[in-house]
């Protein structure tokens, strides 16, 4: 790709040097380029808008072209979950990453990782990096309000984020999942 760009720029340089109507063509070129960049930018922005965590993807593709070849840890945080650090492909539920441990990754290559063996723990409803009493209080309020799919509290009030198992209502199942997180370890890794 870089090779192609270099070739085209040298070709452009040659044609510009030979052209007697240089200012007109270069001006036109820049206007087209700016229009192209403008619409490309809008398109890319739109793509960013669509890719929010609300879609809860089972599989996600991320492209990193220019990262140095090194050992990395991958941190995953759900919309109302603790952040978990992954340092191994197929990491299991109870595995604790050691200092300096990670996954070898280099830019421009494709990798498939399976992190489904380590579930994210529910509870960080207010997204402050820790599962605590504020989240508990929000959860109780949503449950006492009988927040269900379609209700104002669920859809506009944000109680959707308190629905841990995505069954469309905030109930005792969500409370159980929350307490499980608190009794293990409540902070982001």
């Amino acid at each position, binding site marked *: 790709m870089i090779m192609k760009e270099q070739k085209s720029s040298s070709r452009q340089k040659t044609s510009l040097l030979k052209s007697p109507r240089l200012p007109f063509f*270069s*001006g036109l070129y*820049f*206007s087209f*380029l*700016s*229009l192209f*960049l*403008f619409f*490309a*930018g*809008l398109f*890319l*922005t739109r793509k*960013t*808008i669509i890719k*929010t*965590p609300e879609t809860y993807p089972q599989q996600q593709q991320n492209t990193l072209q220019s990262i140095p070849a090194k050992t990395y840890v991958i941190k995953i945080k759900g*919309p109302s979950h603790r952040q978990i650090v992954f340092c191994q492909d197929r990491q299991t539920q109870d595995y604790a990453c050691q200092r300096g441990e990670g996954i070898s990754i280099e830019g421009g290559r494709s990798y498939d990782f399976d992190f489904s063996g380590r579930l994210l723990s529910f509870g960080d*409803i*207010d*997204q402050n990096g820790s599962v*605590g*009493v*504020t*989240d*508990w*209080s*929000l959860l*109780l*309020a*949503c*449950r006492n*309000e009988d*927040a269900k799919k379609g209700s*104002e*509290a669920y859809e506009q*009030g*944000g*109680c959707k*984020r*308190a629905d841990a198992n995505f069954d469309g209502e905030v109930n*005792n199942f969500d*409370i159980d999942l929350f*307490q499980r997180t*608190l*009794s293990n370890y*409540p902070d982001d890794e």
Partner: protein
Amino acid sequence: MTGMALAGLVVIRNKTEERLAELEEEAKKAVVVPDYQKLARNSLLYLKSEKENLTVGEMINLEVMIQSKGETVDGVEFVLAYNPELINIGEPIPGAFFSLYPLMEVNPDKGTVRIIALRSPDESNSLNEAVLVTLPVSVLKKGRGEFKFDREKSHIVAYAGQEILQDLGSLTLSID
């Protein structure tokens, strides 16, 4: 024309940044239930000791107290720092007001006590003053044993995630 290209790039960049900021705000947005009622910050966490002058080897019970003006408190959490070279803290004893204590952790390496206490989902008692937890303290060395709450990590929360913690009280024990 170059200016137009630059303007295009600036617009694109601003649009992207605006949208990312919006998404960040959306993630931080408080959960608001319809009959939201604003509460005043009127609650306290403080420490109560049988005595403040101690001798090496002595054991006392240090009570962590909560005071609130009749609110239905959903939960309390705190981190209390102490000097583990001077003081040893045993297993915390839960108080009677809250039903759930999912986290009670004493870390002698860091010199911290971390407690999370929650009301049961089916209870809604109002709280005036109660013992949150009792810490069995034994004295190891001479000095000034300071107990200090971490403001950032201490919270008293009531209806729909509202912080009602107003103030925290520290305590210093003199050890001879």
